[in-house]
């Protein structure tokens, strides 16, 4: 590995501080979980102080995510095309950052409901999100160690046609579509296994689908910003446009097949919410399109 630049070292230190903050968050969660019982009418002073610390930790993580998202989007253009790590970094950073909102919502729910209801489920989700965010921080630190983007601007317009940006855009879209499909199937099976919670299933599915689409939305915005000075025809070169049109054709054909399949499924199992089928077809289409375009961009030797 090359010697790290001072910027990389600063980022790694920031990542280390964020990781320490998250160790604190885990300890604070464990203490609060044990102390916050229905018999406790008012949160203790310790719980209040620990909560302030948690808030600061989330702010630190939010700022770190913004910095890493910037770096990830620059790395996408710099790193040799076909390498998936910067695309993964974009997906993890966007989802990890947005998950702060889920943390806040769950903590707020726990604060309101612990007196009357069992909040064990909320704590489980909170620890699950904590684990995901911790993995994200570790991955971000590793990526900071491996690659430096000093001297490059996020909004710098592209001088030449970029394979890396083109490939990464579809890598992120493919990951988003897979996440979307996983979200839909997970929600569907969860709703079937726990009928008493099925009234929340549609709302949860929509939230998870929006979360899944977020990385793709970020990368498409990035593509637009990078190409803002070019005419639309110049966003891609002729081979890339050729692959996109073939991808479009394959997507339309598979789209018709998926729609026929979804009509058959909805006729056979009348209890299935059409929303599930529609979103499944949508994410499957994004996946087929992205996978096709990526498969046409492979280097064989």
């Amino acid at each position, binding site marked *: 590995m090359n010697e790290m630049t001072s910027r990389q070292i600063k980022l790694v230190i920031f990542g280390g501080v964020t990781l320490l903050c998250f160790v604190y968050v885990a300890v604070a969660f464990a203490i609060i979980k044990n102390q916050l019982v229905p018999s406790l009418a008012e949160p203790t002073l310790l719980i209040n102080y620990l909560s302030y610390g948690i808030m600061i930790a989330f702010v630190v993580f939010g700022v770190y995510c913004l910095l890493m998202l910037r770096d990830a989007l620059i790395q996408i253009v710099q790193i040799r095309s076909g390498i998936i790590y910067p695309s993964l970094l974009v997906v993890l950073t966007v989802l990890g950052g947005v998950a702060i909102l889920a943390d806040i919502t769950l903590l707020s729910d726990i604060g309101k409901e612990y007196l009357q209801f069992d909040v064990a489920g909320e704590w489980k989700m909170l620890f699950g999100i904590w684990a995901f965010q911790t993995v994200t921080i570790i991955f971000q630190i590793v990526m900071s160690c491996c690659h430096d983007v000093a001297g490059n601007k996020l909004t710098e317009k592209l001088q030449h046609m*970029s394979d890396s940006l083109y490939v990464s855009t579809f890598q992120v879209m493919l990951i988003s579509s897979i996440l979307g499909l996983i979200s839909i199937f997970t929600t569907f099976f969860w709703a079937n296994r726990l009928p008493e919670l099925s009234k929340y299933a549609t709302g949860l599915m929509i939230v998870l689908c929006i979360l899944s689409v977020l990385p793709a939305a970020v990368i498409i915005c990035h593509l637009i910003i990078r190409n803002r000075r070019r005419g639309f025809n110049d966003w891609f*070169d*002729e081979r890339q446009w050729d692959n996109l049109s073939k991808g479009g054709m394959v997507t339309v054909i598979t789209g018709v097949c998926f729609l026929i399949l979804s009509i058959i499924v909805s006729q056979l199992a009348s209890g299935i919410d059409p929303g599930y089928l529609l979103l499944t077809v949508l994410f499957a289409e994004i996946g087929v399109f992205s996978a096709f375009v990526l498969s046409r961009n492979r280097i*064989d030797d």
Partner: protein
Amino acid sequence: MILGNNLRRLRFENGEMSQQDLADLVGVSRMTIYSIEKLKYTPSASLALKIANVFKCPFDKVFFFKTKTIGEDE
């Protein structure tokens, strides 16, 4: 019949030009040059002429028709 080419040889005869250099000169991505060299993609007339202009060669010295052999890429 497919459109064969001498891109690889011409690049090396012209100061060992890289695929990226050629791509930048004709305004396409490096992968497109790679695909043309590997006969995976047939360039448009306009791109083929631009490439021939870079090497200052007649068009038929850069591109030519060849018969597709078994096991060869498209």
